[in-house]
């Protein structure tokens, strides 16, 4: 009892927590501020956490919002304010802050209010990402260079990929058997590169399906992907000259819940017994359940994904698997359009550039370690810091 009174008294005698400075965060959209705090006794173990309240300078006193809560001692020189989506920092608005420290006994030691001397402002160019800009520009230039070459009629070689060559064969098998084709465009959103690649392939597959008059089933998990998939299939039927054959129920939305979606697709596989299953796109933990059920139903299965953790399951249960970038290249293989083949060639040039940079970085790093001269690490540092 006496100890806790003495401890509390000592705490109260200590200089209070205070904010010493507020600075704008460089290279942001004007939505972050750096708060510099002075916390006497931070390392003694008597203080366990600090919190920061914020409000706009012209707001009334009951507008203080808790925006930061950090364990002590602090790991960084400053705290970054603005991550809380409920209390965002707006550019050009002046804020005031009230810090407080929490003692091990649960008491709150409130510090002085600090009015920010600056307002946050956004930068047009994020200089931290210069390396991304350079690499991105270089890759785009290379792709467009080969793209142009292909458009001018230069013949370009593409090595055969078994999984892609089997697509036509798989569609033909379903047509001969008079059974539907199941196409699952992954479980991810439209922002995923694998989903975009899958939707491009869906267009190609749907065109063939329309020509052969084979039933197609496209269950979707994501509502946006569903609408895009529906457009792709509709467009493919139009291009094949059979818009009347398009069945609006062939592309449908099931549910957004991952395993409920799998349960639904598994049921479709066992009831409809499709002759061919395509799993192309982004997949997660459900990949093995899908592919195993498809295998039990006796369908020929072609899978493709860039999810490294799911590829082993597809490889073991499917007849053909497109590994990573093979999925991205599949569209060019199927379409045989010079522009897309040029783009694949451009991507190969980018890979060669990566190999050269990797070998150069390897040599420079080894020289740097042997000679002890850090300046040889410039390439690695450039990639790291921009």
């Amino acid at each position, binding site marked *: 009892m006496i100890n806790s009174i003495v401890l509390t008294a000592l705490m109260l005698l200590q200089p209070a927590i205070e904010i010493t400075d507020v600075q704008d965060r460089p290279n942001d959209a004007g939505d972050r501020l750096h708060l510099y705090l002075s916390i006497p006794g931070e390392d003694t173990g008597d203080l366990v956490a600090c919190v920061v309240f914020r409000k706009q300078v012209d707001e009334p006193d009951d507008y203080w919002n808790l925006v930061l809560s950090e364990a002590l001692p602090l790991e960084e020189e400053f705290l970054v304010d603005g991550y809380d989506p409920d209390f965002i920092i707006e550019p050009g608005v002046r804020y005031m802050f009230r810090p407080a420290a929490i003692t091990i006994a649960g008491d709150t030691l409130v510090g002085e209010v600090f009015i920010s001397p600056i307002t946050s402002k956004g930068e047009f160019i994020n200089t931290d*990402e210069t*390396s*991304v800009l350079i*690499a*991105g520009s270089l890759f785009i230039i290379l792709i467009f260079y080969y793209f142009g070459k292909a458009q001018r009629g230069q013949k*370009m*070689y*593409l*090595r055969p*990929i078994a999984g892609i060559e089997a697509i036509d064969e798989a569609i033909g098998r379903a047509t001969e058997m008079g059974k539907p084709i199941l196409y699952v465009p992954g479980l991810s*959103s*439209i*922002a995923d*590169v694998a989903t*975009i690649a899958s939707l491009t392939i869906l267009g190609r597959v749907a065109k063939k399906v329309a020509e052969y008059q084979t039933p197609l089933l496209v269950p979707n998990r994501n509502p*946006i992907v569903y*609408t*895009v998939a529906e*457009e792709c299939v509709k467009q493919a039927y139009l291009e094949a000259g059979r818009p009347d054959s398009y069945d609006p129920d062939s592309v449908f939305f*099931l*549910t*957004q*819940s991952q*395993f*409920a*979606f799998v*349960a639904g697709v*598994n*049921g479709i596989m*066992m*009831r409809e017994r499709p002759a061919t299953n395509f799993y192309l796109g982004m997949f997660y933990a459900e990949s*093995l359940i899908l592919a195993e059920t498809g295998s039990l139903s006796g369908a020929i299965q072609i899978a493709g994904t860039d999810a*490294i*953790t799911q*590829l*082993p*399951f597809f*490889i*073991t249960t499917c007849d053909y698997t497109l*590994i*990573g*970038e*093979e999925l991205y290249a599949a569209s060019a293989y199927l379409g045989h359009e010079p522009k897309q083949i040029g783009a*694949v*060639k451009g991507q*190969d040039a980018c*890979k*060669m550039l*990566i*190999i050269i940079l*990797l070998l150069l*970085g*390897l040599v*420079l*790093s*080894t020289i740097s*370690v*042997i000679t002890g001269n850090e300046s040889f690490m410039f390439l690695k540092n450039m*990639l*790291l810091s921009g």
Partner: protein
Amino acid sequence: MYDTIGIWVGAFFTLAIYSFLYKENPVYRLAEHLVVGISLGYTMVLIYNSVILPKLLEPIFAGNHLILIIPGLLGLLYITRFIPSIAWLSRYPIAFIMGTAMGVAFPLTMKAYVLRQLEAAMVPLYSSGMPWYEVFGNIVMIFGTLAALIYFFFSKPHKGLFFGTGSKIGIWVIMLGFGATFGFTVMGRISLLIGRIQYLLGDWLHLIE
């Protein structure tokens, strides 16, 4: 009382889903349709309560974020799909979302999957005091990465020393990696199965503690 009902319902549907291991049957079908329907209804309520209401309707009706009316209207264009004569309007939000998604994804992918990986692979092969297994690990990592990259060259025939041998080593490296991932994931799945069996034998039948 409610807990007991919940445990019995959970056990029934666990067994209903497992019955699929024998063959597709009406009990599985019941569980399948229920889980699809309930999950969809639940998601709709969740999205309304966590996105539409707090992020769109409340700020608009509070009058301080009227700019949100524009994305709100853009989202409403999706509903035009139900009216064939103006269904083409739904292509605008699709185009907007695809363009934005690609624009956002490109620099992030470039940074995370190309530049950061490249930087992480630029390790010195040897330095004084480095144990032999670390030197060996670095060699395997770097040359494995190079071989796997060579495998993914599409515009060159996989023949000769560089592309032929390189791609052969590459596919071996990839398959070894997949084997390790397979084993690791199967271990995780077995622990999930154990959890479910514990639920059936413990919470439901009280056969184990």
